[in-house]
């Protein structure tokens, strides 16, 4: 009996000494970042893909099973996962990733959020009380979150802390260089007016100093209706935009319709890692985003 209990406990223990650190990443960008820092020392599971809407994920049994085995959860926070993450946390029976534990990492806590609503009211649509959660579209935030994530991974898995820090140092040097390159390339985009489907790119636009002149969703999270789109089209005649932006996961129809009507290009930006073939890592994500923006601006 005693032996059985020991075996049972052994089977259930979250990390044995040699096992890779199990990371449950809510979104692909954090999975990519964790892989940069963790390399072969971590086993990363990305709960969502770039073709899924991170607001609306089904709390599927497979996600519960992965959450059960995670040592560290890396999510955006700020209410982005409010519709599914609480169910996973409740059902998985994993103590180490509960809120407040070191194994519960929320990126939103390490950056300053934009668009914090002054008034929280559902007439405003699906607003996030803490601010806009699509913070990874500004690459400077990736650097901030990465530094904090490295510290957290080192705290949870001190045996491999040196390796995590070394990989992070290497990544951040390359990231800084890339930032300089991107910012230099993006100079022609400054001040350019764009229309967006959902406030997915507020951080990107702020970084590149572009301006959002119209939104296709009548309220955040509410599907654009035909009447609303017609109104936006009229609005664009008075205040023209150079392009319409949507994330790869968003329904293409509203953006395409409006773009055709206004005679401007509609861009499907990758939004996150895996959003298209070129955005296969964090560098590719911003390379492709800038290429598309510059291509459309020409």
């Amino acid at each position, binding site marked *: 009996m005693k032996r059985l209990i020991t075996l049972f406990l052994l089977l259930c223990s979250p990390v044995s000494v040699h096992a890779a650190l199990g990371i449950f990443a809510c979104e692909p960008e954090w999975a990519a970042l964790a892989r940069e820092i963790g390399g072969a020392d971590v086993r990363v599971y990305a709960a969502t893909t770039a073709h899924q809407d991170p607001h*609306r994920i089904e709390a599927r049994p*497979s996600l519960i*099973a992965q959450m059960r*085995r995670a040592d560290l959860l890396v999510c955006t926070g700020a209410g982005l996962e409010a519709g599914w993450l609480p169910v996973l946390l409740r059902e998985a029976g*994993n*103590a180490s990733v509960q809120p407040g534990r070191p194994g519960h990492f929320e990126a939103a806590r*390490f950056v300053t959020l934009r668009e914090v609503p002054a008034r929280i009211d559902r007439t405003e649509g699906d607003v996030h009380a803490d601010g806009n959660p699509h913070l990874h579209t500004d690459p400077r935030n990736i650097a901030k979150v990465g530094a904090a994530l490295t510290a957290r991974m080192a705290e949870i898995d001190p045996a491999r802390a040196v390796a995590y820090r070394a990989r992070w140092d290497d990544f951040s040097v390359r990231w800084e260089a890339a930032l300089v390159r991107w910012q230099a390339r993006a*100079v022609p985009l400054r001040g350019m007016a764009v229309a967006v489907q959902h406030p997915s790119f507020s951080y990107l636009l702020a970084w590149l100093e572009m301006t959002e002149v119209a939104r296709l969703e009548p309220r955040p999270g*509410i599907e654009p209706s035909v009447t609303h789109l017609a109104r936006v089209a009229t609005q664009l005649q008075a205040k023209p935009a150079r392009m319409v932006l949507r994330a790869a996961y968003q*329904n293409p129809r509203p953006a395409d319709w409006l773009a055709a009507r206004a005679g401007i290009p509609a861009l499907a930006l990758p939004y996150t890692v895996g959003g298209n073939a070129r955005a296969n890592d964090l560098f590719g994500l911003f390379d492709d985003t800038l290429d598309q923006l510059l291509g459309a601006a020409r």
Partner: protein
Amino acid sequence: MLRTALLAAAMASAFPAQADTELDALRTELHELKATYETRIQALEARLRAAEAAALATPQMAAAAPRPAGRSFNPDISLILQGRYAHLDDVEHRAISGFLPAGHGHGLPRGFSLDHTEFVMSASVDPYFNGYFNLALVDEEVEIEEAWFQTTSLGHGISLKGGRFLSGIGYQNVRHPHAWDFADNNLMYRVLFGEAYGNDGLQLKWVAPTDLFMEFGAEAGHGAEYPGTNRNRNGAGSYALFGHLGGDAGISHSWRAGLSYLHAKARNREGELEDLDGAETETRFTGASKTWIADFVWKWAPGGNARARNASFAAEYFRREETGQLGCDDLDPLEPSLCSGGMTGDYAATQSGFYAQGVLQFMPRWRTGYRYDRLDPGSVDLGANSASLPVTDYRPVRHSLMLDYSPSEFSRLRVQYSRDRSMEDTRENQWFVQYIHSLGAHGAHTF
């Protein structure tokens, strides 16, 4: 070395006023590095050019101090408003043929009516427990549907729930009416539990550390709800066991399957039945009730993105065995029945049934669904009561078709048509128009 150079570059860009001398120094440093760090140097030069032009804002690379989260102390509170219009036949006494009535339902009001209004509150109690509270309000009645704590810190996939909760058996059981895909409950749950099986007690659940989702649970409780009764005893009045498996099949498909068992005991469980002559009688069942449920759910979302289009299919099958004694007497002493004076006989029944439903969201906001209900009264042995009470082999069937529209995640309007043949002598066309609105922090839904 490179780090120093980078730092210097960052400083230079941060303080353009002192840039001149530092830029010179940096340039010299850069030339020295060039031999070994050719590619990285290009980036630094670009950075220098940027600094010279003082064109761009300097990126802030340092990690910001952690920001406290917003409203984490406040409990999540929500209120669910539900109401409907029902177009129904005038049926005096609704009862599913061939089955003992489960609990006392609220009947089916005709015309406009208010459904349960649900009040829900939930929060972390402390680092060790979560708490959840669900109150259902209808006229002159307040019902605590759920009020439980659940451990969060046991780890190893184990969680313990205590208080009043909806049992983890089956699939539909844990879902509150506002999360149903149809305007009314399926026939299977109506004959099994009235609405859903809730219990006051404890639930222990374990999730296996495997890629395939495997969950096993055991419950023990007071067992006062149908099919059990309050027997005024210490110890557990009912217990339940359940296991679920689940996973994904590719990116677009996911599934869950389960088996559950419920054992309950009843003493003088009241019911109303018509005798062979159609007079109302009151029945009292004392004995054991065993229920098995098999459930299967499959969901589809193209590319894993359920936002525009998705579909789900759910089916459950049950088998119930009840053995014991059935007492029978007049419901109203002024209206004598064949049971006048009180009769008691052996009772043994094995009954079964199932439902299967499919729901398709064919475009954003719009869903349609079809549900098929079928029950089998199986074999019922009434013993001595067979002289007064009827036994039927009629199989209740119902078809339901629904269409709903959700302006947002928080509101839903639904119309449903049901062709109901759950009563042997009634063929009914039922129409429902229903609204479900949720105010406040609406909790996440389970699979």
